[in-house]
């Protein structure tokens, strides 16, 4: 798959994850857009590769963050004495 397609896919995946962001989708979308626009002129394939890898890392972090947030909320609500 071309790097270009992978970057747009990464952006779409991150946007999707942003829907659950605690401070709201708009907040997340603006930051995300800014982060991608900041590097829009990058031409070096190796550097782009590193950025994609970083994006993948952020995806994993977000998934873990949401999972933990949900688990903790439930634990607080239903398992008070433990």
């Amino acid at each position, binding site marked *: 798959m071309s790097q270009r397609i992978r970057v747009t896919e990464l952006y779409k*995946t991150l946007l*999707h994850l942003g829907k659950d962001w605690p401070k709201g989708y708009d907040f997340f979308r603006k930051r995300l857009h800014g982060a991608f626009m900041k590097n829009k002129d990058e031409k070096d394939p190796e550097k782009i590769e590193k950025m994609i890898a970083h994006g993948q890392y952020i995806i994993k972090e977000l*998934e873990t963050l*949401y*999972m933990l*947030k949900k688990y903790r*909320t439930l634990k607080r609500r239903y*398992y008070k004495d433990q």
Partner: protein
Amino acid sequence: MARVLVGVKRVIDYAVKIRVKPDKTGVLTEGVKHSMNPFDEIAVEEAAQDVLRTALAMGVDKGIHVEVSGSDYETLQPIHVSKILAKIAQNEKADLVIVGKQAIDDDSNQTAQMTAAVLDWPQATYASKIEKGDKGITVLREVDGGLETIQCKLPAVVSADLRLNEPRYATLPNIMKAKKKPIQKLTPKDLGVDVTPRIQIVSVEDPPTRQAGVILPDVDALVGKLKEGGHI
């Protein structure tokens, strides 16, 4: 291949601040974010893992949407849901029914138990570990003050507790793929289930707000206040 039926409920998202309707008949649901009941996510994950382990399929294969109209939904109770689930379990020839132990909106915690009763199947509620054996399943249950291990024959009804597994996040590509999977639409009437309400909601109220504290100038004033309140 074991056929697993998983019950899933749509509830107000866990992160939303719940507001009571001004007429006290329920809570506001319009325009509020909804998502899958977290305990049901755990049930789905367990079913998916079971299927994955046997390498027969990936994820859930088929969805059945039981449509309930707005007014019926407000008075829909576990007794109705369990009759619906029992009927589907029989129609689909399920070997195992897994549901979340309770939904985070009404916290009834009755559906699994009632479904097992309607089907006359064994039940393993509050599961925190499920293992498949030759004769059936071994389930570790979360009970008051500890854990209990039970064995039961299949078919059975299991309800998932919080620590059964860690549900995976539904990724965007998987959601797109899932759109191609079949969803069968049914109504309670199709299944021959009567959803007439058995209970009446008298009033829904906000939990009491914490009362403001007072700052006292010295210990004597505090002792005076405590005596006044009858605490000492």
